[in-house]
């Protein structure tokens, strides 16, 4: 059962890293792509009672094809509950029912702050990004936040240009200053090179594991801050046969996950 496979692609490994953060019974708010794949891997392996919701108002959808947006038609038939944004973002998320949220962004910094608003100056943007959407409340209100990012010096940052979604803001104590629970917030940054976990004390992301084809050195080189390395740093466990079977036979038989290769997740 736990035999590993070596013929996987990087997005599959990353999705497995996400899945392993999900506990049985967790309520997970997901977007499309990685989060859905990760949460589904968890459901089909160690967390059969994990349940997903989408901010559009859907809980426990039963899609027959991978959803391409959080409002995708395939989320409608078979769901357990369909309501409004207020139901999911207000009643479930702000009502503190959500265990896990997934986020990604054009910039992520060492305190887990995420920028999806603007690169450069806000008033005179070099590059205008989509904005918060559900990211800000998910980052503030989900118990555990899992961040997906491309590992390079442009996407990872010492400090983001704009904090759309606060992680630990300026470090220890910052969340409390804003009345946010200190024991919530980002858990990990899962990149295409490794897994960075947030230190409970310093609130800074450190290197927990490097993916099989990467290395500590490569990761340090591609991280724009002085990245701490865990004492027990190790290679990221490869996907198990069971995990890969879940991805390929159940969750994503059309292999839509391969679009992440084109987006640089190699």
């Amino acid at each position, binding site marked *: 059962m736990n035999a590993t496979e070596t013929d996987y692609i990087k997005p599959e490994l990353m999705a497995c890293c996400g899945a392993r953060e999900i506990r049985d019974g967790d309520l997970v708010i997901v977007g499309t792509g990685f989060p859905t794949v990760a949460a589904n891997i968890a459901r089909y392996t160690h967390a059969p009672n994990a349940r997903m919701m989408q901010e559009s108002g859907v809980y426990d959808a039963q899609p027959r094809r991978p959803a391409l947006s959080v409002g995708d038609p395939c989320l409608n038939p078979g769901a357990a509950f369909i309501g409004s944004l207020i139901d999911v973002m207000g009643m479930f998320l702000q009502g503190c029912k959500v265990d896990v949220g997934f986020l990604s962004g054009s910039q992520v910094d060492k305190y887990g702050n995420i920028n999806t608003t603007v690169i450069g100056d806000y008033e005179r943007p070099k590059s205008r990004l*989509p904005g*918060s959407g559900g*990211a800000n409340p998910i980052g503030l209100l989900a118990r555990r936040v899992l961040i997906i990012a491309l590992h390079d010096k442009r996407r990872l940052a010492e400090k983001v240009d704009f904090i759309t979604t606060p992680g630990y803001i300026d470090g220890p104590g910052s969340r409390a200053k804003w009345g946010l629970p200190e024991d919530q917030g980002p858990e990990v940054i899962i990149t295409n090179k490794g897994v960075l976990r947030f230190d409970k004390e310093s609130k800074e992301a450190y290197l927990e594991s490097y993916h099989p084809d990467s290395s500590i050195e490569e990761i340090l080189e591609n991280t724009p801050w002085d990245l701490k390395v865990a004492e027990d740093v190790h290679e990221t466990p490869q996907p198990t046969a069971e995990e890969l079977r879940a991805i390929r036979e159940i969750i994503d038989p059309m292999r839509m996950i391969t679009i992440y290769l084109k987006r640089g997740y190699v």
Partner: protein
Amino acid sequence: MSKVMTMREAIAEHVHDGDFLFIGGYVCRTPFAAIHEIIRQGKKDLTVTRSNAADDFDMLIGAGAVKRFIATFLSLGVYGLGRCFRRSLEKGVPHKIEIEEYTNLSLPMMLMAGALGMPFIPVKDMVGSDLLQVKSFLGEGKYKVIESPFDGTPTLLVPALNPDVAIIHVQQADENGNAQVWGIEGDCKWGANAARKVIVSCERIVSREVIGKDPSRTIVPDFQVAAVVEEPFGAHPGYTPGFYDVDFMFGSLYQQASNSEEGFRAFLDEWVFGVEDRNAYIQHYIERFGYAQFRGLMAEFDYGYPVSYAY
């Protein structure tokens, strides 16, 4: 007292330059027929809002109809980024819109507050973010932080929104405007009821009797509604549950076209200015892409179980 009219009449009569519009939809039930008509009629200086805006908002911005945008997000999702939105904010093309930014929690709460006659509403998001640092046309009225009079906790308050007009697309409505939906709701119910009047675009007009067979599905009562437009495929290239699927081909076509200003203008010329109404649009679609492609969008039949309200 039927309020049934054409989309041309509804937009001409009920949407005015400078109005504040809520436009419903969430990929699901986007009122695209209305969006095209607004552009065709050259409406301008609009303030627009919705949580998670997409191609319809991008198009309105590219067409120059929008002055201000109360926003949470604008992206074309799987198709790519909203190029008109970016050109406006990055390059001022066709002009730079003013943008006031919230999130997919706070904005729906502001619309709900508007619908429920509340002056403001407390929310738990945005704190600690730069969303509180930037203020645009709402100025100091964007939000307030108070100490809760109950326990002293710092509490963020955001103002209620009451748009002049809401435009929504629904599965069915009667001729007076009682509007029914099922499936993903987005912020449609609260946004529509927060507005001073509602334009209801629908897949089918049904009798008042049909509405009364399942009144729990009604999200907007007739007295809120100014116009009812029967507009089958009115959400295309978005979808309507039970009627038709998302048209990924066409969504992608728009994204490709809108990558350049020229492409965007050509798209409008073909699909908005080049057709006089929704019928002509669908006719053109079928001529251009074939009936088989069109037919492929139509929903399967998978009906649920009827219920009784009797006693």
